[in-house]
């Protein structure tokens, strides 16, 4: 795991620092004198060797010091913390919506497999999977904001008024959650179907349990194993999906921070934020692996 994180950090650092261009020159513009450029280069620590710069950066990360933005001169750590206060709740909100849609739809799809309603559910989730969150977001804005005036269009009022803040997150969370829910329902359906066809469930049925009872007593835990995997991966894709949706709704989260820094060529902020997102995705993957083993005792001991 640490190896993967280290590799990821190396990758981010190398890609963002291979170009010979001087960040100091970019910051000061073309009018700057060579002298002032050199001064800023030294001030930013960019005159040191790349290896040294990398070690400084990693050392800072480990100690929670993310450095200072080249452009805004604000602490990147506090900027990211600020952004997380939007992105974090957004992702969790979207996950809840995704589960609220995906679980019941998946169950219904499995239990009604082979009937018309089952195929209908399958078709709907197939279409839902094909809808990018951008499209879901824009359509929701057109219908609920422009036509019906139910929700604010965009922007974020801050958490000082939690109710308004949540209201601003409803549409973005739905644009993410609807799509994830569709994906989730397909996995839930497949997983439950597999349980329904299993031998032990047939045994349970033959001793007089109804489908629901048999599933509850025997099926859920087994069905949960693949679902935990999917859930972890979904969470990771929500974190990344939030980058897009935040831009549709102008929410000041990680996504907006990332894109603004790309546009301003604020490379150190990009470096930190990208590392944070990549790290989150990698840690989620690890948690999935671990929970897999926790839920399925058969895998214990195997590495």
């Amino acid at each position, binding site marked *: 795991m640490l*190896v*993967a*994180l280290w*590799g*990821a950090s190396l*990758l*981010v650092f190398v*890609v*963002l620092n*291979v*170009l010979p261009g001087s960040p100091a020159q970019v910051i000061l513009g073309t009018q700057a004198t060579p002298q002032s450029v050199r001064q800023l280069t030294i001030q930013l620590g960019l005159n040191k060797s790349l290896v040294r710069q990398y070690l400084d950066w990693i050392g800072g990360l480990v100690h929670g010091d993310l450095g200072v933005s080249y452009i805004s001169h604000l602490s990147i750590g506090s900027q990211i913390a600020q952004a997380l206060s939007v992105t974090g709740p957004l992702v969790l909100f979207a996950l809840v919506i995704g589960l609220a849609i995906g679980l019941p739809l998946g169950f219904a799809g499995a239990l009604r497999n082979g009937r018309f309603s089952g195929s209908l559910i399958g078709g709907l989730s*197939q*279409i839902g*999977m*094909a*809808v*990018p*969150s*951008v*499209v879901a977001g*824009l*359509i929701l*804005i*057109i219908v609920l904001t*422009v036509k019906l005036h139910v929700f604010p269009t965009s922007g974020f009022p801050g958490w000082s008024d939690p109710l308004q803040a949540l209201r601003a997150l409803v549409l973005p969370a739905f644009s993410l959650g609807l799509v994830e829910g569709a994906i989730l329902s397909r996995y839930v359906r497949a997983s439950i179907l597999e349980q329904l066809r299993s031998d032990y469930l047939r045994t349970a049925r033959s001793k007089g349990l109804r489908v629901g009872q048999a599933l509850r007593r025997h099926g859920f835990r087994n069905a949960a194993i693949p679902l935990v995997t999917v859930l972890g991966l979904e969470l*990771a*894709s929500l974190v*990344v*999906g939030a*980058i*897009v949706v935040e*831009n*549709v709704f102008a929410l000041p989260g990680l996504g907006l921070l*990332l*894109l603004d*820094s*790309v546009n301003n*060529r604020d*490379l150190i902020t*990009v470096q930190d934020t*990208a590392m944070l*997102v*990549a*790290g989150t*995705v*990698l840690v989620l*993957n690890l948690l999935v692996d671990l929970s897999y083993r926790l839920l399925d005792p058969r895998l214990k001991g195997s590495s």
Partner: protein
Amino acid sequence: MSDLAAGTTGRGALDDLAALDASAARDTRAWRRWLRNPNSLIGGVIVLLVVASALTSLFWTPYNPLAVDPAHALAGPSLHHLLGTDEYGRDVFSRLMASSQIALFVGALSVLIATVIGIPAGLLAAQRPGAIGQVVLRLADILYGFPALLAAIVLAAAFGASKTTVVLAIGISYIPVFIRVTRSNALVVLNSEYVLAARAYGRRPLAILRRHVVPNIATTIIAQMSLLFSLTVLAEAALDFLGLGTAAPAASWGTMLQSSQNYLGNDALLTVWPSLAIVICVLGFSLLGDGIGELRDARSRH
């Protein structure tokens, strides 16, 4: 001497047996099965339509997709402009057609990058489960940390956003997927008895990969390619929307969505058309992928 001869014929016969289920794919009945499976049928038709529209747009579109006509800006659908015009008076239908070119181009190239690196790496990891395999898997783990969007942002920050960074980003981010899929499917084949037999009579590892593994996992890989193609269309649209890919004035579904944002109130149709195009295209490739997968499963049950 006769022993040797018997050995060679025996070897050939064994290989033929193993190759049997791969050759079933070339069966004439395959087409009929293809047409009877709703997923592969609908998916195939949609994909054909998208490809046809992209090819047609290479030499003909109703209007020049870049031609500005301020006098007819933001016109609704009419006989002159089938789907209306955008804020510069450009024909929306022509722009949709031209966009399918970019979507297919980006999709094809990025899937190519992912497969050209991912499949051999996956085969290697399956063939050499020891240290080499572990290294390949650890490298794949690192790449898992960079989904297409994040990879594209990092590349855009370093090199400036362009179609190239989009293709690279999507391609690289799908490499680990192909490594995993190839490896796990190849392992099943490599652990089978006919491969054990092939090893026993001294077939070299590369020959085993070529004769047994590749033909047997090909369908799975192709199904996966089609599914990933649908994801590249999604990713490309999102990246263009964010301004990280195809730049204006060139037409792509993502840039069309981006500029439609300013007209959500008055001209919602400007958002609807590219949205529909994306959804239909993605649906086509994912249905096709599902269909191919189902056909494979049906065959292996026989």
